[in-house]
């Protein structure tokens, strides 16, 4: 169950251009969080909280790691935090990634840009459960690449850049044919990427993590809806998601 807590900044690091990795501590959050859930962080001077995915969880240390790109004034404000400072956070929010460890053999993870972080915690957990992990990471240019080596710990990792400055030149969808066999895919990234991907991979079961501008982050305001094949006709990304079965939402 999500709570409102103060999380202490333990470490801050720029891991790629405008891309900040931050370790935050709070025992309840670390204890209960699951990969794919997000934190709703308050940046001083802002009306609305900022949703940022949990990239990985360290239950022993009581910490979680987040990674975020500096986009506007909110993330700029978050980025200037230094160890010892704290944030007002509501979390862990939303549902996380799920998998059936008894039947799953190989999972394909496809991350685009700042959609990569939530997949990291998933990769870690899948690997831990003995499931084979293959990963495709797409970035704009080589300056934005992060966590390549970290994903390589868990399995074969392909890097793709829009301009070819590192890894393969092109889009993540361009190398789907190369990755070989897998049972299920998990993806997070920009909507055009997810659209192309779910279309191309529609023969496979898949899960995608979605983003939308949020008001409340608790399911009350209906800001973050996505059309859905469900009876109600829509789902709320903040509480029904952010992870959805690919065939449950209409992109």
């Amino acid at each position: 169950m999500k709570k409102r807590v103060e999380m202490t900044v333990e470490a801050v690091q720029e891991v790629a251009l405008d891309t900040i990795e931050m370790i935050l501590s709070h025992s309840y959050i670390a204890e209960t969080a699951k990969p794919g859930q997000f934190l709703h962080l308050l940046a001083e001077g802002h009306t609305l909280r900022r949703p940022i995915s949990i990239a990985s969880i360290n239950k022993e240390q009581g910490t979680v790691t987040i990674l975020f790109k500096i986009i506007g004034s909110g993330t700029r404000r978050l980025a200037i935090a230094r160890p010892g400072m704290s944030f007002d956070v509501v979390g862990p929010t939303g549902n996380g990634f799920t998998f059936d460890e008894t039947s799953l053999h190989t999972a394909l993870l496809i991350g685009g840009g700042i959609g990569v972080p939530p997949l990291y915690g998933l990769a870690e957990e899948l690997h831990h459960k003995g499931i084979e992990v293959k990963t495709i990471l797409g970035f704009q240019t080589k300056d934005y690449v992060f966590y390549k080596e970290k994903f390589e710990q868990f399995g074969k990792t392909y890097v793709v850049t829009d301009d070819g400055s590192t890894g393969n030149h092109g889009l993540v969808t361009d190398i789907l044919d190369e990755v070989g066999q897998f049972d299920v895919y998990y993806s997070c990234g920009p909507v055009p990427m997810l659209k192309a991907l779910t279309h191309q991979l529609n023969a496979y079961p898949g899960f995608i993590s979605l983003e939308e501008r949020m008001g409340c982050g608790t399911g009350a305001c209906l800001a973050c809806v996505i059309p859905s094949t469900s009876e109600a006709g829509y789902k709320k990304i903040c509480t029904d998601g952010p992870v959805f079965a690919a065939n449950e939402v209409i992109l």
Partner: protein
Amino acid sequence: MTNLAVKLPGLKLQNPVMPASGCFGFGREYSEFYDLRKLGAIIMKAATGNARLGNATPRVAETASGMLNAIGLQNPGVRQIIASEVPFLAAYDIPIIANVAGSTIDEYVQVAETFNQTEAVNALELNISCPNVKEGGIQFGAEPDMAANVTEKVKAVSDLPVYVKLSPNTNDITAMATAVEQAGADGLSMINTLTGMQIHLSSRRPLLANETGGLSGPAIKPVAIRMIHEVKKYVSIPIIGMGGITTAEDVLEFLLAGASAVAVGTANFKNPFACPEIIDSLPNVLQNYGFASVDEAIGRGHAL
């Protein structure tokens, strides 16, 4: 002991603080954070005759000390609300105010009639000011005659007290307020959102899919205070005040301006505990400024 209780038509409030319509859903989500019994009352999300899907996304944008929203009255329809949402809220034993919306006078009347048949709802808030419905809602809120007309028609079918929610997008809020008072309104809700827009620089288009949205939050508080202070001089029905409230000091400012109770909207998003925290601070704040009760403070910002 500071007395927080307020009595309004149809509503016995243990304290004057309630969540604003559309900012609290039907209470379920915030009931995970705290016990809703704490609240003075609850105003539900707008209800229309049939279910609505609302606008395309993005539906919200952040602005300086405020936000824009264009949800577009998404709701499961009045019957579904009565069947699935009202019973949940009724268990908390606090007054329930139903926010009534529609595109036509008939729809308003139909929604009001339907709520009238349930025991659990204590009052109606007539949302004639939602800026996000294209078909008609906006006109009701901009023309005193239209507003009076829909108020009268709804009053005719409703045994419940009717609070009419006014739009700030007008050059004469007093004309609106006096028109609906004369039409039989039992109270006023002030203010709904100011119509605004944000343009997204990269896409060169309005950020909200609906283009315009309603501006809420601390940015609009001075407009709300001014309108309530002005209207209070001309009407004798009570006012539920809202617009940018985030602290108990803000509540006192609204009481002084002439509100008898208040609603908290946008602040819930920043702080899910906004309402209970404000309620907990209110006795001290009233005391610090020399008031022994909420009643004493109402309208005291006016020359005697």
